[in-house]
């Protein structure tokens, strides 16, 4: 039972990581009805940037926000250069373009940093603390705290500031927002920037657990897909809840069923949700215009 609770806590920690990446997917889905297949690779690239900054002697807690700012700028740049010219293309073209982007970013990271896995410094000690018989590592608590804080900031930004309001308005009613004087195109860019920054959090949090290499996020993105689909792909709250559920499920399955089938659990969740409840836990039924 004690082991179960320990797995539960570390599952919530990994779930928080999945949730951040899933939230990044949801932000872009809401902005333009597109799943960004490059989200994981962009996060991986940002993590490499953080790695370089730390390698130059910067402390983790300075490198972390600096990387988020860089990721934010990078997200905006990607939207301006790659996505904006094809905004009106059919969704299949857009998916192929984001896949191309994923391949490109992956290759660039391999080009700059190589494919040898590197260990990424963790800002938290690996000791554990005894909480009523359950050993919880500082690392897990740190990850939960950081991702929780980032999600809270994002929530406050989206729901309680004017920028957040315009952002949501531009995503839901582009035409009406444009008439009201919102720069819809720049709001989309802002959405890409935010998504990129939130995704970078997941990369930086997961890198100490896995090893840092260009293919690091390839499995994480599958769990993030599962989380986003489970929560209902347009719901930010759903992404967080979905992320936590996927994190705990995968952790438990890894311990009790089979370690090498963890990734298959992600696939199983995606397919089960899409077949049984395509709108996810918090999504609304899609109304199709003919």
């Amino acid at each position, binding site marked *: 039972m004690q082991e179960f609770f320990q797995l539960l806590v570390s599952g919530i920690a990994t779930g928080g990581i999945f949730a951040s990446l899933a939230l990044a997917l949801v932000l872009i889905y809401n902005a333009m009805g597109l799943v960004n297949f490059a989200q994981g690779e962009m996060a991986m690239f940002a993590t490499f940037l953080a790695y370089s900054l730390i390698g130059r002697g910067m402390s983790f807690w300075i490198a972390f926000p600096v990387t988020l700012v860089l990721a934010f700028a990078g997200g905006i740049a990607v939207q301006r250069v*790659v996505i904006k010219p094809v905004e009106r293309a059919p969704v299949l073209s857009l998916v192929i373009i984001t896949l191309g982007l*994923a391949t*490109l970013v992956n*290759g660039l990271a391999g*080009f700059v940093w190589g494919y040898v896995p590197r260990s990424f410094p963790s800002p938290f000690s690996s000791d554990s603390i005894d909480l009523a018989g359950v050993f919880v590592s500082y690392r897990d608590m740190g990850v939960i705290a950081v991702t929780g804080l980032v999600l809270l900031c994002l929530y406050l930004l989206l729901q309680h500031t004017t920028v957040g309001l315009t952002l949501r308005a531009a995503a839901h009613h582009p035409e009406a927002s444009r008439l009201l004087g919102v720069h819809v195109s720049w709001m989309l860019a802002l959405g890409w920037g935010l998504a990129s920054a939130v995704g970078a959090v997941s990369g930086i949090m997961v890198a100490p657990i896995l090893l840092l290499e260009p293919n690091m996020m390839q499995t994480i993105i599958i769990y993030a897909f599962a989380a986003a689909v489970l929560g209902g792909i347009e719901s930010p709250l759903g992404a967080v809840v979905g992320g936590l559920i996927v994190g705990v499920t995968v952790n438990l399955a890894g311990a009790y069923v089979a370690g*090498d089938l963890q*990734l298959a659990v992600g*696939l199983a969740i995606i397919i089960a949700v*899409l077949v049984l409840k395509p709108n996810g836990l918090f999504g609304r039924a899609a109304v199709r215009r003919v």
Partner: protein
Amino acid sequence: MNRLRTAPPRYWLVVLAVVLFLGLPTVTSSFVASEWGQALTLAIAIMGLNILVGYSGQLSLGHGAFMALGAYISAILVHRYHVDFLVTIPIAAVATGLVGFLFGVPALRLSPLYLALATFALAVVSPSLIKRPAELTGGVQGILIPQPDPPPFAGDAFNAVTGTAMTSDQWIYYVILFCTLLLFWLAWNLGRRRPGRAMRAIRDGEVAAAASGVNVAGFKTLAFGISAFYAGTAGSLFGLSIGFISPDTFPVSLSIQLLVGAVIGGLASIPGPLLGAIFAYFLPIESNQWVPSQTWIPDQITSTVKNAGPAVSYGVVLILVMMFAPNGIVGLVKAGYVALNRRLRGAADRETGQLPPDPQTV
């Protein structure tokens, strides 16, 4: 005879291509023939993807997984049950096709975006799924596939033409070429007859197609089945050609490579997959040979290009093609041909009713 004389020039292009491919192993080394054989297996798989994406408008990012299925069915039959390889090719193709058909049923309920997501997940997960039943699939070690000797009739004919004995690589090349020609011919017939028309109608407007009496669900699942049939054949031949398969033979990047080939060549066209396959197969090989041969490029960059080069160039090519030439090489050639015709014939062309180029397919 009259029909021959009036045949449009593209038929002569087909004849020329077939002759070139038939003659290729007689003038090159056995190794080059085997490389081209592998490019042709990619062409088969890309044709399958083309039928699914180009004609029926459903996106699959997991065709590498279907290739793996076909390859493993063939390899297991050969390795454990000592079935002749040629017999296993249709078995693998049909079995993979059935699996694809079944996969197409839940896929019906998914929007294109979700389908892309699910198939991408399938592609990422499939290597670890293959490793699992280790005694059947050989786990991480994979399965060796013995190379068949050419049968006497083929060996004699080859000897008569070139004066050298036929190697098994050359024999496999001809097996692959035969399958490619057959499957491309089938795809051509499929595309211009009822199923192809129905699929394109679904792609361009599902509701309109249903209102016109097209069985939308039936043709969408059929497209999935046919597409998987092609991928299964390709996988089976691919395994035979390289002589060894393991879970790492079918990584996610293979699925991406297939997509690159389909997009580059031109979706919803018959020559497109062939051109795309040649591009997608030879780009990394040629760049790996070209870059080290350039002395002005530092050694350190050479070694990273070897690993990262294909990914970077595939990514750039995918993005640029989707942005500027959504119908790929074939689309560019067609547009060029139409423009050239207009230029040569002048204004009179307007009366001949030259059809506008095909609409953008994705």
